[in-house]
């Protein structure tokens, strides 16, 4: 991921959890900071990718509802992408 600038995130942790994180980080050959970030990022990605509910803000909910109620239209960008020639072929 192209991160332009690193930022600080401070978190409080109890001694037992801290010891656990340190042991797991050592076992993964990572420092504690890298370990916590990697584990949390994986969990964050999983939550976002498998949400059973996508909650919209008020503005987004209104705009989305208007779009739903409009008659169906051809999406030009999608049509263009679908017409683009593939540079591979299917085996089956």
């Amino acid at each position, binding site marked *: 991921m192209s991160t332009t600038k690193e930022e600080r995130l401070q978190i409080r942790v109890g001694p037992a959890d801290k010891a656990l994180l340190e042991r797991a980080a050592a076992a993964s050959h990572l420092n504690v900071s890298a370990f916590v970030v990697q584990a949390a990022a994986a969990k964050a990605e999983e939550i976002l990718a498998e949400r059973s509910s996508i*909650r*919209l803000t008020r503005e987004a909910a209104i705009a989305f509802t208007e*779009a739903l109620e409009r008659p169906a239209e051809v999406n030009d960008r*999608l049509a263009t992408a679908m017409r683009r020639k593939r540079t591979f072929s299917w085996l089956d």
Partner: protein
Amino acid sequence: MIELHRPALLDPRRHDRDRFDSGEAVLDQWLRRYAGQNRRRDTAATWVIADVDDLVVAYASVAMSGIDRSAAPEIVAKGAPDPVPALLLGRLAVDRRYTNLGIGTALAAHVLATAVELNEKAACRAVVVTALNANARAWWERLGFHPFEPDDPDRLDLYLLTSEIRATLTRAR
């Protein structure tokens, strides 16, 4: 020309995922750790495009979801269904060695066609994607996806209506 298998559900015994490298560590790790559909905690179905040796070159994970509009109570009060049933295309990754061939687009097209089919049998009003970063958001926008929050570059959820997918795919045929 490279020859690839059509999109198929990931079969952990058949498909080789160990060498998959999309350049996004979280997406690579998720694929490697995936243990199969019979694991209770899996809530998503995973589709792959693999090469002649069953090496995965692209994957997508898809889950049923709902679009919650309760932040605008007047809409829900009008009797509109809430949540709106939708397909969440939570992950789409292409191996770095296979980019710019149209593989990601082909896999996305497969999921979009699935949404049209689902909508005919049960309701599925939209396909939602959650982009990992600004580059991914731009890729989805080129495919025609609309950001839920067009004015906020930090919001990375986008959608296509099943009705517009159907109208577009029908005309393209």
